[in-house]
């Protein structure tokens, strides 16, 4: 059980690190990575929840949620990459926050 607590705590640490990054990092690629770190934190907690019954087969529902979540996160990341790529091509800038004041 102790290792499961450790994993959950790691999951929360990842989630919170990512959350900070999404809001306070300017570079688009780094922000995208922060978003994925958030996701990884949530997924880690899902695995812990599935694995609580150490002896039997793990709970398949969190596993299915995890797989769905990964696909959704990949889709969103790829979409974001497409926009970011285009944005950098047009503006030559790597962040969107410089023009916030307007």
């Amino acid at each position, binding site marked *: *059980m102790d290792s*499961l*607590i450790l994993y*959950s*705590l790691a999951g*929360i*640490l990842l*989630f*919170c690190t990512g*959350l*900070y990054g999404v*809001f*306070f990092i300017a570079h688009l690629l780094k922000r995208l990575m922060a978003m994925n770190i958030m996701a990884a934190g949530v997924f880690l*907690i899902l695995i812990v*929840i*599935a694995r*609580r*019954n150490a002896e*039997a*087969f*793990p*709970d*398949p*529902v*969190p*596993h*299915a949620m995890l*797989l*769905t979540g990964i*696909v*959704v996160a990949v*889709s*969103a990341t*790829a*979409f974001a*990459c*497409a*926009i970011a*790529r*285009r944005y950098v*091509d*047009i503006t*030559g800038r790597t962040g969107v926050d410089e023009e916030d*004041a307007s």
Partner: protein
Amino acid sequence: MKGAGKAIRVYGLCAVVLLAIWLVRAVLAMPVEPGGLTGVVDAAMPQSGVKHPVTAVLLNFRGYDTWLELGVLLLAAMGVLLFQPRNDLTAVRPLPPFDPVLTRAAVILFPFAVLVSGYLLWVGKYAPGGAFQAGVVLGSVVILLWLTGIRLPAPLIGRWFAPLLAVGFASFMAVAAVLGFIGREFLAYPPEQAGNLILLIESCATLSIAATMAALIVGLRTQAQHAEESPHG
């Protein structure tokens, strides 16, 4: 302005740390005994049409989620296609041949990858595997071929590309429409046909996922190409 930004950062950091503490307290209060749906899933497995519980959850018990998830994939592919002149990859210029050894290796690998993909699709019924794994393998070998400078078959990245992207999402809908027409609940497979319907949907989903992966990588690369050729605005 810089100073204000810094202050906001500090507040943000404090908020995140507080949130972390709150969440840690919560997680420590989580019950240690399993309270999930393992038992419920086990009890329903005989009617699911497959032998692997995760596949059963993904494609039968919570198939509705998976349908919508294929919709998310389709939206991502549409987002990338927005920067292409048409709904296909025909505007993508093939890369120059990279390295004869690598090109040859990719060509040799291709049939094996298709085989592995087919196997993964089939084995999902009994063990970890299924449409997503199969689609990703298929998609990556296509990307590999493209990276080594091989021209992809024209109809595949042309006329048939958009239908390929859509076929996974569409297969779920077709099944739902037929089942609704014969008076069953939404996406409620008849137990004796569940295995076949799942295989049908998964085969279509594999094609869509592979095409989407290709679109997401190849489509991105093209923009970079065009950017290198045209001067920055």
